[in-house]
């Protein structure tokens, strides 16, 4: 029975397609990883795809220890930006989403549509007004400025995401608390948020990765070396006259580690957050 199921053509084909897509997605990473573990000469002469040659961690050691690259500052700044830019919008958006999903108020739908529209605006079109806004606020080349921009960007999509999740939560769970005398605030913090951990974790993982991987905003709003985030620091590894691909790859892989760890830590919730509410499971 089990084997029959596995051998069905539909199952075989969907598995093949899934593996194919996964391999295609993985390919750049494999290339990056191979490059980061080879000496400069081999990379330049043979390319990353030849398996023969020397493997070494020298690139990693160099990129971490050579003071001219200063990845440590980049990591520190990235954390300073990414953590508040994940947590603040999460809380604000969850509150907003709850209101959108449970209360009726004037212009609710109009407001919600506005949020959707905001999500659709390309960042590039906003960057000049934002530049002047930050300048007039004295927040140019300040981490706080970038934090504010990432947070407001995050609030829009997380509100949308959380509202959809809240709409799937059964109402009687809340009503049961209301009969017991729980206020809306109590219901939100004691019932709704704990039940929404999967969705919150998913939103946190996505937002953290997004902010961490941002290069565009950082490039425009942060320019002193001591304020640069990791994505900017990685670019500085590329020298002016020659590119040491091995060093650059090693730096890129190091820069990837924090978001990958965040995903790994939240993965258990992440899948459930995407799948939605399952009755009886918490």
């Amino acid at each position, binding site marked *: 029975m089990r084997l029959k199921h596995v051998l069905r053509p539909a199952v075989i084909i969907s598995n093949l397609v899934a593996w194919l897509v996964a391999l295609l997605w993985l390919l750049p990473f494999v290339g990056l990883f191979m490059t980061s573990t080879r000496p400069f000469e081999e990379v330049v002469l043979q390319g990353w795809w030849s398996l023969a040659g020397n493997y070494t961690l020298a690139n990693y050691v160099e990129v971490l220890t050579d003071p001219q690259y200063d990845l440590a500052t980049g990591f520190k700044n990235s954390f300073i930006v990414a953590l508040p830019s994940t947590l603040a919008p999460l809380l604000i958006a969850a509150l907003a989403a709850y209101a959108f999903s449970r209360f009726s108020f004037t212009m609710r739908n109009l407001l919600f549509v506005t949020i959707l529209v905001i999500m659709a605006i390309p960042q590039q079109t906003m960057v000049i007004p934002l530049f002047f806004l930050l300048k007039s606020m004295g927040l140019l080349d300040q981490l706080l400025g970038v934090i504010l921009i990432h947070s407001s960007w995050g609030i829009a999509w997380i509100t949308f995401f959380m509202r959809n999740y809240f709409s799937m939560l059964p109402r009687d769970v809340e009503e049961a608390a209301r*009969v017991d005398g*729980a206020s809306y605030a109590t219901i939100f913090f004691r019932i709704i948020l*704990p039940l929404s951990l999967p969705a919150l974790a998913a939103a946190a993982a996505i937002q953290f990765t997004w902010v961490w991987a941002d290069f565009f905003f950082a490039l425009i709003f942060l320019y002193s070396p001591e304020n640069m985030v990791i994505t900017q620091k990685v670019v500085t590894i590329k020298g002016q006259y020659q590119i040491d691909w091995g060093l650059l790859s090693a730096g890129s892989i190091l820069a990837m580690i924090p978001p990958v760890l965040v995903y790994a830590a939240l993965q258990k919730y992440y899948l459930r957050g995407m799948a939605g509410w399952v*009755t009886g499971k*918490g």
Partner: protein
Amino acid sequence: MSSIVLNRVTKRFGKTVALDNVTLEIGEGEIFTLLGPSGCGKTTTLRIIAGFELPDSGSVYIGGREVTYLKPYSRNTAMVFQNYALWPHMRVFDNIAYGLKLRKVGKEEIRRRVRWAAELLEIEHLLDRYPHQLSGGQQQRVAVARAIVTEPEVLLMDEPLSNLDAHLRLKMREEIVRLQRRLGVTMVYVTHDQEEALSISNRIAVMNRGRVEQVGSPEEIYEKPSTVFVASFVGRSNLLDGVIAKILGGGLVEVSIGRVKLVGTAMTRGLSEGDHVKVVIRPERVKLEGESDVNVVEGEVTLSMFQGWKSQVKMSADGVELTIYTDAKRAPHPGGRLKAYIDPEDVKVYRSSEDNM
């Protein structure tokens, strides 16, 4: 323990009239059941009593106090939900204790009362578990314990047994009745299961399309359904179309159903000759033996189905189809001839109207 009064309550959802001028009086300490098909307004009625919905007009009283616009928790009611609505992230103990915690009851007192409720429902051994570690029946018990632990005056039950399997449902039914007797709490019970309603209730309100069709004891509802809807919704019925042939006096009428003539009891006032009527006959009231020469129907057995302690027999008499429940041991075989005897009291005649289904 409190009485509940709904006075001319109307509730609309958009253009749909969910409740149409509903008036109900529910006595102190009784089990009052709201019975009807889905969409009849029974759950809306319950939710208005609970305070989850506000009526568009009319008023609600609990224990003589008007509560129409009061918040749910200030009504001193508790509710058991169809899907139990346990909080999945809390252990059973905390699920039961939550209402007491919100009411700022002391720790010792909370422990004592949770234990009391858990013992009543026989779930003391489950207090440390999470809801997803419980079976449906156990979750149900936790939901009931959570509802009674705050000692509400009114216990609202929204189809509490509909997610249980048949065997467990019968068992919980008994336990709920026993629990209600013990606590003396006023219970409003919503169900679409007519058998459940008949067996647990002191009184039943049969609802249809946002209106109350009849309020009465289970016996009254079953024996003297005031409308065709009630007769067909509660219990099994033969529903036949007929015409009044003669008014006999004493509440009796003669009805022609095709070529069959039956003497029946008029359930609608003011019937006159030639009126189109619906005739309701309970299958178990048709007898296969008798001495009377009134209402003897002769026909052919078309179907005989064994159902354990009874058999369901279908007969066709001059084109009239009649379903009969009879002792399985004496059930006739298909193809044979059959004489059926029906007491005029068991032939109930209602005026046909658009509301009749």
